[in-house]
């Protein structure tokens, strides 16, 4: 299969019509589509899947409801028609598939999957294919179970890691898908068909040729026992299958609930932070209210400061003058006392008449008389300064500003936490966490039941095999002595018995061969892609899991994320070689875990992995300047997914 074009209308983020042409011209077989996260890369992959299989997959390969594939803006504008048109070439024929989703008649505003109807048309070489044959035709071109190896996202690469782990339900499912890709179902179905035909022939043989005889009675009895045993086996298998399906469903629910628990814890943490921010905002509001009556001071702060400086200077001056006056008064008193006593008041030395006369001379007492006045001035200035300091002692302006900032910051925080809580709540709509305990108990009970049923099924299978052998021997012995029409049936029984044994034993033979081919091919790819060139290669297990062997053929038990990705890509390539390949390889975000050297190795090899390669990548994993040079000669077309709004993207050719 080689893709020609994909046209999407109102499909997920693609409002209106958008088209991509996938060109292959000579060596140029790679189409690169760039898009940042959440722009619509996986939606493009899903557009392909939906066109082919009418199915859209989300994370962990979960089906997305049809109502969610309708573009939100289109729905808002009451344009409810979604369409995907895919053209491709397969074995020389041109195909066109158009899948359409539209509201059922009488539904005005579709809100649920039941409100939509889906239709699909297909043309081969321009000629319409009957509606009832479309699914079968697609299954012949690229069966859905095989498509996972050609239309896959990076997440799927991680899934293959499970193949090397112990057998799990998931690894069994992947193994089954791999065997489907490799053609094992043809032999499995052949075995079932031959067994069914053998069973019918044996029944007919018994009816026609051996009624009434002793041998016939024994045969009939054995046949009845065999049929009863088969019915019981079918009943047990149905119970097992139903319990397994329920356990899987519960497992999915539990995964969601565990995730929801994590989300709820984050919501509660956000609520606590929001409460703290609310308390901080209330404090800021209260402080702002306290400061409001003093706000007028902020307006005269500069005048107050200037006046305070003036008064401080005046007070300093007046205090100096008061000090000088006090000192003069002390000196005058000492002179008068010394002149009166005739000796120095300090050292008691006798004074001459002239000296005493000089001391009696009056001092300049201009300050003496002003002492009280100056003291009053100093006291007045001190009071004024104290009042001014009270008024201008706190910086009201900066305090108000600080309270405003705190209020704004807290308000932003509250809104931020509220938005985060809304976003987290939207992730777990209608989740009832109280179900967690009940579901866990139910799942554990189912797992015990499944274990018990597995044992019973194995025992019943052994019983069926034993009865079948006994019956075969009886029929074959009887067939030896028959003639005419009965002999004809006997020949058919013999031929079918031989075919039954051949098909039974061929299945394991084929699996062995395929594992060998996949291992050799994957090893060759791995050695080409890995930067650890001394590794001996890969070894396959019975679930198609691949283990790395080092240069001494020892198991490399600890593998990096990048190594896992290289092994997974090698497995894809090995499977592609063993199955003949689907022709096209569409990879969504495949380089996420690779370092630069591995990325270069993989890029260099990608164009050779399939006839056509479509890469859906973001700039972070595949730089246009640094990485694309490795495949420049192979790039046939390049596109970019551009964001128009949170709900709309468009595809532009580069």
């Amino acid at each position, binding site marked *: 299969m080689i893709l020609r074009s994909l046209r999407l209308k109102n499909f997920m983020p693609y409002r209106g019509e958008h088209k991509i042409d996938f060109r292959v011209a000579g060596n140029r077989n790679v189409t690169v589509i760039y898009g940042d996260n959440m722009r619509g890369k996986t939606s493009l992959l899903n557009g392909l899947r939906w066109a082919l299989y009418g199915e859209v997959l989300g994370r962990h390969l979960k089906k997305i409801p049809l109502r969610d594939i309708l573009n939100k803006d289109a729905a808002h504008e009451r344009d409810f028609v979604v369409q995907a048109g895919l053209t491709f070439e397969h074995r020389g024929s041109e195909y066109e598939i158009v899948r359409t989703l539209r509201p059922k008649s009488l539904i005005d505003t579709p809100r649920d999957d039941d409100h939509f109807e889906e239709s699909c048309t297909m043309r081969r070489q321009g000629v319409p294919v009957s509606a009832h044959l479309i699914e079968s035709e697609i299954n012949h071109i690229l069966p859905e179970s095989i498509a996972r190896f050609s239309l896959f996202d990076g997440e799927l690469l991680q899934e293959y890691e499970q193949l090397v782990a112990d057998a799990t339900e998931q690894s069994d499912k992947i193994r089954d898908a791999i065997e489907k890709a490799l*053609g094992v179902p*043809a032999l499995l179905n*052949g075995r*079932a068909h031959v067994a069914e*035909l053998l069973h019918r022939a044996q029944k007919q043989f018994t009816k026609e040729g051996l009624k009434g005889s002793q041998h016939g009675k024994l045969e009939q009895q054995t046949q009845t026992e065999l049929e009863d045993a088969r019915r019981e086996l079918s009943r047990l298998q149905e119970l097992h299958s139903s319990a397994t399906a329920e356990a899987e469903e519960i497992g999915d629910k539990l995964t969601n609930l565990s995730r929801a628990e994590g989300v709820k814890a984050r919501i509660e943490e956000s609520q606590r932070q929001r409460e703290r921010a609310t308390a901080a905002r209330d404090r800021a509001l209260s402080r702002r209210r306290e400061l409001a009556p003093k706000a007028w001071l902020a307006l005269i702060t500069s005048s107050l400061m200037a006046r305070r400086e003036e008064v401080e200077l005046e007070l300093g001056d007046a205090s100096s003058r008061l000090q000088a006056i006090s000192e003069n008064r002390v000196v005058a008193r000492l002179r008068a006392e010394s002149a009166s006593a005739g000796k120095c008041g300090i050292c008691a030395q006798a004074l001459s008449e002239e000296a005493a006369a000089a001391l009696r001379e009056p001092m300049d007492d201009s300050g003496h008389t002003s002492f009280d006045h100056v003291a009053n001035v100093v006291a007045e200035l001190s009071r004024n300064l104290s009042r001014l300091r009270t008024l201008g002692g706190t910086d009201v302006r900066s305090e108000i500003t600080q309270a405003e900032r705190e209020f704004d910051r807290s308000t932003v925080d509250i809104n931020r936490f509220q938005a985060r809580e809304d976003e987290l709540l939207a992730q777990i709509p209608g989740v009832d966490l109280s179900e967690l305990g009940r579901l866990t108990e139910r799942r554990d009970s189912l797992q015990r039941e499944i274990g018990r049923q597995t044992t019973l099924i194995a025992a019943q299978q052994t019983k069926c095999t034993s009865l079948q052998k006994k019956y075969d021997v009886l029929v074959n012995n009887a067939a030896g002595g028959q003639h005419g029409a009965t002999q004809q049936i006997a020949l058919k029984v013999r031929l079918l018995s031989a075919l039954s044994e051949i098909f039974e034993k*061929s299945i394991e033979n084929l699996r062995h061969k395929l594992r060998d081919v996949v291992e050799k091919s994957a090893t060759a790819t791995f050695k080409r892609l890995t930067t650890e060139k001394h590794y001996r290669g890969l070894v396959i297990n019975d679930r198609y899991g691949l283990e790395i062997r080092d240069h001494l053929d020892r198991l490399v038990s600890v593998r990096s994320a990048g190594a896992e990705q290289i092994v997974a890509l090698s497995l894809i390539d090995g499977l592609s070689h063993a199955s*003949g390949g689907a022709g096209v390889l569409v990879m969504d975000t495949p380089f996420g875990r690779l370092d630069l050297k591995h990325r270069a190795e993989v890029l260099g090899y990608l164009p050779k992995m399939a006839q056509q390669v479509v890469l859906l990548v973001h700039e972070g994993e595949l730089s246009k300047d640094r990485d694309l040079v490795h495949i420049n000669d192979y790039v046939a077309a390049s596109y970019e997914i551009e964001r128009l709004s949170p709900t709309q993207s468009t595809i532009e050719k580069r």
Partner: protein
Amino acid sequence: VADDYALRALVEVRDQLNAPVPDDLLSRILAVEQAHAFDEDQDVALREVDSLIDNQLRAGQKA
């Protein structure tokens, strides 16, 4: 490619068992099974295989 492996597996087992089943019959049955491997309804494949076996028996009788 996988088709070749399947036929080879059938022929190898047939040879090991020394079963009287011709290559041609194995090849035809396998072709039917491969064509209908992914059909939801397997009745068509079952009928076609039955018809191949009846034809084989008739051809054997004539011979």
